[in-house]
Structure formats: C-alpha cells, structure tokens
C-alpha cells in the first residue's frame, strides 16, 4: 500500500506530451535557424528539400569535384567534417558548414571558400591549412570561374570559357610490399633455384609485384631451347622475355605459347621462324614482338599485326 500512491500532478499526461512535442519542435527550429547546415539536413531528411545533384558531364563534376577531392575532402568529407562542412558532393558544398554557406552562386567576393583558398599561406585561416598541398593558380581559377558562372550543377564544361586546360593526374601505384611478398611466395623456391642455376637472367619486374622478366641475351648462343625449358615452372608470371642473340629455335614454340602473361618478346637474331610466330598467335596478352634478323616472314606476322601487336622487324631499318 504504502509503496504506491495515486499520481497527483498538474497536467494530464497527454497535455504534457503535447507540450513536449511543441517545445522540442521549437528547439529544433531554433537550432535550424542557428545552424544552416543542420537546417538543410533536416529539410532533406523530411523530403521538403530535394538534394541537388550535379550532372555527370557538368563543369562541376569534371573540373571542380576532382579538385575538392584532391585537396579538401580529407578534412571536409565523409571521414571528417571540420566546421561541419563537407565538400564531397555538390549538395554538401552548396549547403555549407557551421558558419553558413561557403559558396554564393555568382558572387565570388562573398564566397567564403574563395576567400579562404586565396589567403596567403601564412594566414591562420588559409585553406588548405599549412602542411597540405596548396591549390595552384590554375586550380583556383577553375573554382573562381565556376562560382562566377553561377555555381551551377548542370553547366557544361564547354560553356565556361577561359578555364585552364585539364591536366591529367599521374597516379603513382600504391606500394604494397606485403602483398607483393605474398604473391611471390608460391614460386619463390623455383625462382631461387633458377637464379642460382642461371644467375642474373631472371628478375622481378618491380618491387611492387610478382611479375618477372627473363633476359638471356647476355648468354648468346650458349642459351638454347633446353635452357629455356628450365624456366617452365615460372612461365605463369613471365611478362617480358629477351632472347635476342640466343641459340633458341622453333622447338621452343610450345613453351612460349603456354605463357599466359607474356607481354613483350624479343627474338632478334635467333634461328627462329614462322613456326614459332604461328604458335604465338593465340597469346592474348602479347603486345610487342621483335623479329629482326630471324627467319620469320611478313606473311606469318600479318595476323599478329592485325590483332594490334607491335612487330619490330628488319623492314624498320632503312
């Protein structure tokens, strides 16, 4: 009895809940007024506002988005949102951050983004901040032209005049030594054995891969079909072979034909001929073939040429 009494409050429960709903909505409204970024995400969540998207071939997508990706999204993207600003999509970029929008369409002077990227590097507010690669004058020009033309999601590349030429970025391959080691593991013992028996002929193409190259040209005529056969265990990984000036003959045709990764083959000054060439025809990976000083005829090379394989032969030396 004494552990339980009747509730005696001031408001009925339903009224209270209504009050809570009202106050909460008021609170969210105030938050939206104070934080525009929050306002936008709420509106988009309620589908009261469509998420603007940039066309795939628009100036934004082709020229501006890659710049943001290279210089900005490490701190203003999915992983981190400094100052609640994201620049990894058109919608986010236009939405702005904690202190309001950073891009004002058509108004370069009042676009905070433009101001930040053109500040001197010593300024505390300069973007990207010290330690990150700054934007080049050409890149700043691209962004300026885009904002000046209305920061549109649809305007085409050609429609914006005077943009600096798009320079292709060169991607240096990722260096994953551990993965290369794992890939090399399967043939490692064979490679070791062959390196001992034929020192200096077999090498990995790069430290980053398990692909291999075989260069027997230094051995001259002493290197023959039997020697090439010794490399049979590693043929799955051979991408380049140089047999210039060696003693191999058409007898190695079947061995060479069974190399699925072979891209370049040099047979200059060997006693090989059309039989070997014919055996190479099914090799899909082959990109270049040197037949200078061999017995191969132009006719037999025709089918390889037709497939796009670059053939170097006697005819090239005028």
């Amino acid at each position, binding site marked *: 009895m004494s552990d339980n009494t009747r509730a005696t409050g001031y408001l009925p429960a339903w009224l209270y809940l209504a009050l809570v709903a009202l106050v909460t909505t008021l609170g969210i409204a105030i938050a939206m007024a104070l934080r525009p970024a929050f306002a936008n995400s709420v509106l988009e969540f309620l589908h009261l506002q469509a998420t603007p998207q940039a066309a795939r071939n628009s100036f934004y997508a082709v020229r501006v988005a890659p710049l943001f990706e290279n210089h900005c999204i490490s701190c203003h993207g999915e992983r981190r949102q400094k100052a609640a600003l994201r620049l990894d999509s058109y919608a986010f970029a236009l939405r702005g951050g904690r202190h309001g929008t950073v891009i004002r369409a058509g108004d370069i002077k009042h676009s905070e983004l433009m101001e930040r990227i053109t500040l001197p590097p010593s300024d505390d507010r300069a973007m990207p901040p010290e330690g990150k690669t700054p934007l080049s004058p050409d890149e700043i020009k691209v962004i300026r032209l885009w904002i000046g033309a209305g920061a549109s999601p649809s305007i085409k590349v050609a429609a914006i005049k005077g943009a600096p030429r798009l320079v292709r970025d060169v991607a240096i391959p990722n260096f994953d030594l551990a993965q290369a080691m794992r890939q090399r593991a399967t043939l490692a013992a064979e490679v070791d054995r062959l390196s001992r028996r034929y020192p200096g002929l077999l090498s990995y193409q*790069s430290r*980053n891969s398990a692909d291999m190259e075989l260069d027997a040209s230094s051995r001259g005529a002493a290197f023959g079909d039997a020697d090439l056969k010794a490399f049979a265990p590693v043929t799955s990984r051979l991408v380049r072979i140089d047999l*210039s000036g060696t003693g191999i003959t058409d007898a190695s045709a079947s061995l060479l034909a069974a190399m699925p990764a072979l891209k370049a083959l040099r047979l200059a000054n060997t006693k090989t001929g059309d039989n070997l060439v014919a055996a190479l025809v099914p090799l899909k990976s082959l990109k270049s073939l040197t037949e200078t000083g061999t017995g191969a005829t132009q006719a037999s090379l025709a089918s390889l040429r037709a497939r796009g394989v670059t053939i170097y032969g006697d005819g090239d*030396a005028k």
Partner: protein
Amino acid sequence: MIPSPFLDQCRLQADTRRQFLGWGMGGLGAMFLNSALAAPAKPGASALQIKRDPTTPLAPLPPPFAPKARRVIYLHTGGSPSQLELFDYKPELIKYNGKDCPEALLKGKRFAFITGVPKLMGAMYPFHRSGKSGAWMSDRLPHLEKHVDDLCIINSMRTDQFNHAPAQLLVQTGDPRIGHASLGSWVTYGLGSQNQNLPGYIVMISSSSTTANAGKPLWGSGFLPSVYQGVQCRAAGEPVLYLDNPKGVSRAQRREVLDAVDEINRGTFRQLGNPETVARIAQYEMAYRMQLEASDAMDITREPPQVLARYGAEPGKTSYANNCLVARRLAERGVRFIQLYHWGWDSHGTPVDQGLNVGLVDCCHATDQATAALLTDLKSKGLLEDTLVVWGGEFGRTPMQENRGGQEMKYIGRDHHPAAFSMWLAGAGIKGGMTHGATDDLGYDVVRDPVEVRDLHATMLYLLGFDYRSFSYPYQGLDQKLTGVKPARIVSDLLA
C-alpha cells in the same frame, strides 16, 4: 698496426660529431623512441628506401613499380642549340627582323653577353610542318624529321641559369652547384647494373667546337657513393684510358694484385666502415671484367658496312656518329644509362664555328644523320619501346641577335636564354608525334604548359619506375632528391 697519419686521419674522420652525439644520445634517444608516445612511422616509407649491400653496390635491383623505360640514352647538345632555328616556329618574329628589341623584354633581365638594345632576329632557316603529326621543324634536321612522329617536342622548357656550367649542372644533376649526383648516378644507384661486366653509366664525348662546360661533375656521383659515377669511354683508341694492363703485366698477375688490394680494402672497410672503400673494390673488379668486354662492346668495326654508312660512322675517329653506334651496342648489352655529349652548339656568333650560319649548320650536319640512325636501329631491334631517348641542351637562345659589347658582330648569333628552350623525348612511355607547350609570339617567354627542369626529371624517374618524391639519399641532414626541394610534377601530357 703501423702508425700512419693517413689511417689516423681516416679514423678521426670516421668519428664525426654526428656519430659521437648519436652514440651518446643513443641510450636516451632509444628509450624515447621506444616509448609508447612515439609516433608511428608512415606506413610503407621505410619499405621504399633502397637497401643495398655496400659490398655489391652495382647488383641489379628492380624499381619500386613497373617501369616503362629500362634504359636511358641522353643526347646532350652542349652549348645549347637555338630552338628558334630548329623547333620553335615564330612567324611573328620574322616580321620584327632587324627591329630594336622592345624595352619590356630587356628591363630587369640579365644576359650573358647582350648589352644595350639588341635587334630582334627571325629564324634563319625556313620551317615547315613535318610527318603525319604536322609538327613544326626547320630544314636543318632532315634525317631526324623522318622520325618526327616518334618525337615528343617540348617547346616550353624553362631554367633559371644563364651560364653554361651551372645550367648544365642543373639539367644533369638537378642543382646548379657542384656536388650533387647526376641523373645517371641516381639511376645506377636505384637500379644497379644489368651487365656486371660493363659500367652501368657510360659517357661519350664529341664536339664540333669548344664550349664552356662543367666537366666531369656532370656525370659525377656527387654525394652518392662514387661507384655510381659515369665512366667516360672513347670510341677511338682505348675505350677507357688505362683500362688495359701495362706492358709486361699479364691478366693473371693483375688478378693477383687485385686480390691483394681487395684484402687490404676489405680490412679497412671492416675497421672504418667507409662505403668508399668497398666502392673502390667494386670499381677495380669492374675494370677487371671490363678489360674483356668493353673493347668488344666499343668496337664498331664489328658492324657491317651498311650499318656504318647509315650512321655516317668512321672507325678510328672521334665523332658523334661513332658514339651513337657505340651507344646502340651498349644498349643491346644492358648498359642502363648512356650519355652522349656533343659540344659546339653555343651559337653566339663570335667565332665562325659558333655562328648560326656556320657553326649551327656544322653541328646539325655532324649529328643529324647519326641521331636518326640511332632511333631507327633502336626501333628495329625492339629496343625503342623500353629506351627513353632525351635530346637537348641546358637553356635556349634569345630572340635577339647577340651584340657582344654593344657592337655588331661578324657572325650571326643569339645569346643565352633561360626563359624558354626546346628539348625532345622519344621511346619508352612517351607520346610521339606531339609538341608540348608554347612560347609567346616572339619566342621570349613560355605562355603555355611550362616544364621546369625538375619536372622533366620527375617524369623521367616516373618512367623508370621511381617516385621522385621518395627516391632519396640522406646527406647533410636532408633526404636529397634529384628533383630538389622545390615542388616538381610529372608532366602527364608527355606520357603515352
């Protein structure tokens, strides 16, 4: 131990201040580094460093990532050819021929020899579109023109040096001062030598006339161990001076001497740890192996007469043509970095052999056929697809006629011009049949797609399978790079 002032000095030099501090601080430093507060190292950074056994400095190493180029043939046109007479077509300049150079182009600029107000001068030779690509070339290089669709002509090269030696050092070592490692040394350091019986880096020299030059530091190893320096070979006479044994010394006796010297050097290395000691061992051993192979490689009489004729090579003489043929033979034998220097392109117009109307003609004549023959041969042997061929000087020449001392000169010439010059590339990974970049109407400044020397180096290293940012050697407290400390970029437009 026999007391020796020399050895004592070696020992003292080995005990550098840095080493002393290192040993002293080793205890505390090691404790700090091992503590939990140590920042984790950048992943993969140490994996990229070249790790070499100092006793086998020339052992071949694969590059970090798959290369397009496996060897480089660098044709340095020493003295610097006039791009306005060869590759950079400026029809506007012809209109201004003979007129005074505008003030704006002279104000605040420093010239090597021009003083006062020189006169503008249009190209002395006619230009035309060539090959399938339609690249502009003058009529001075008719043989090279046949290969124009394989060439990537860069008309927007830039340097900041206006004198020969610093400019050559910049192009060859990445820095205008002596002491830095040359391009070939870097490549040999990074890749080793494919053919253990020949040097990995060979230099050959020819000339049409004398030119001021920086000399041996251009192919020196700088701060890299000296085993990586370029070896100067000659196409006539002894391939390498003093390579052969002296009269009366047999090969077996030479071997005995070398073995004894090896033993002493190894002992010194164990004691002092100076990598130069084992570099010396490696060089002696290399010289011993070279005795057999170098003469064969450099002997152009082994080539059939039609090949000699194609190059214009004459055995027994020192000539660019002979050097080109040797270069091809060396390329076939696994030498990774071959450099040909041809001096005499410095067309100031002072002596007759340096006038645009005489000296330049001679230089073109001496080199054009052989350069073209080299490209042809490399192509037919399937070597061009993985050989990077580079041709160029150290700066450009002015659109103004040189007026040394303010006087009109006897022969026609142009002064040094760092603001714009032309080079061409061909071969591995290079997009042929194109011209990159452009200068203004007068050919004075680069207005489109400038390529700094360090950008060219970055691109070359990329083609060889190296990241120019991480390919470094620690020296004097800095991780020294070929491209230096200023930001460089790989010029993607040049790549196929």
